[in-house]
């Protein structure tokens, strides 16, 4: 195995593209090194992206936010401006693992690991986030929901690496929230995750995005759930419709962490509660 730590994104993409064997990107290593240890992955080349300045920065602004692929969960949590503008994105990422894991793990790593239960992914999709994808010859911007195509599968092509995540312009009276259900209080994998991002106008929901995690092969955007609350003040009836739309959108697996019936029902409950939190954070209900 060869270890490389380039200092530009283009150099990283070129290294990845030229490698004839298996090439992996190393950000926090909290998935990659575990896979290597378990014998599930034997890369010929590891490209460490943490020496690339553009990948280690956070730029926060109401007009648009950019978070480098090497930024850790801990750094997101420390960034007060980001937390204020996108509390749901930050809380989702901060739910991943222990303090030790937070010191290393990244949102982009969580995205590219492509687990259906990834905590940060529903929050990013709800936020309307995009990924800046860099290949050896060109850059492209891809909506986060187009990155993961199935469990462990992404749409990235050989030689492509994600440089950063961008979050769109943040209108006034907007906020987001992420909730997950796990059987204990810490250090577990989501049985259900729900993210809601919304904007209010005169106390009513003007626009919303509702996303579920761990209830389908990939995180799923549920437009019917958003439609159920748009134009409302999040009254009981609207919330019940949102929950029903979420449950209807589920196609979960049955395993020891949760049955199909359980996940389907809890998805509605989590989405309802996340919507209530986002609504309150956006200044609703006053």
């Amino acid at each position, binding site marked *: 195995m060869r270890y490389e730590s380039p200092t530009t994104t283009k150099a990283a993409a070129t290294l990845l593209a030229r490698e004839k064997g298996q090439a992996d990107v190393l950000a926090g290593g909290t998935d990659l090194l*575990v896979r290597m240890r378990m014998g599930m992955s034997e890369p010929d080349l*590891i490209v460490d992206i943490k020496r690339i300045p553009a990948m280690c920065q956070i730029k926060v602004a109401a007009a648009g936010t950019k978070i480098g692929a090497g930024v850790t969960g801990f750094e997101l949590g420390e960034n007060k401006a980001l937390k204020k503008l996108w509390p749901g994105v930050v809380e989702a990422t901060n739910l991943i693992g222990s303090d030790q894991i937070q010191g290393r793990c990244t949102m982009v790593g969580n995205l590219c690991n492509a687990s259906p239960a990834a905590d940060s992914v529903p929050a990013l999709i709800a936020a309307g986030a995009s990924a800046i994808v860099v290949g050896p010859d060109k850059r492209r911007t891809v909506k986060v929901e187009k990155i993961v195509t199935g469990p462990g599968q992404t749409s990235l092509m050989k030689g492509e690496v994600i440089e950063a995540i961008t979050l769109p312009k943040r209108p006034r009276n907007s906020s987001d929230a992420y909730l997950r259900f796990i059987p204990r209080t810490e250090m577990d994998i989501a049985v259900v995750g729900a993210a809601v991002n919304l904007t209010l106008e005169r106390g009513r929901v003007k626009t919303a995005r509702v996303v579920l995690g761990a209830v389908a092969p990939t995180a799923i955007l549920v437009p019917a759930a958003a439609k159920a609350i748009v134009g409302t003040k999040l009254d009981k009836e609207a919330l019940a419709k949102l929950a029903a739309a979420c449950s209807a959108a589920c196609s979960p697996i049955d395993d020891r962490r949760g049955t199909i019936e359980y996940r389907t029902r809890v998805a509605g409950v989590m989405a309802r509660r996340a919507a209530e939190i986002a609504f309150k954070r956006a200044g609703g209900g006053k």
Partner: protein
Amino acid sequence: MSGVLVSTTINGDAVEFACPQNETLLNSLRDRVGLTGVKEGCGTGDCGACSITLDGRLVCSCLVLSAEANGREIGTVEGIAQGDKLHPLQEKFIEHAALQCGICTPGFLVAAKSLLERNPNPSEEEIRYGLAGNLCRCTGYDKIVRAVQAAAKEMRKK
């Protein structure tokens, strides 16, 4: 496989070592640098026995490649005491009998020190969440939590 030369600062001292490119920092610290306070429990980032600080940030050394540590600062349990003078956390762990077999203890000490640096007056809940990445199969955690609370109190006096 060709090796890699790693220049680091460990507990304030400049240290250089050579190792294979796929070696974890946990293995280098134990087998090349001789810092055996860093323990291997799970090797997959779940148990925290290999906790160290990397540029001041708490991490599991089993999930770091040694090559990544080039030019970085590492802190281990061996750097917690000042010469013969134990750190308040170490003193309180002994006083409260917050250890039995001792395998998890270095990781707990490094993680607790990091926690108290960020939050000098944590609630019991904050301590339990803060140390959720460290597993202990002997003590049932209660004595560890009490020891951290006592150490925090002691440290706030200074």
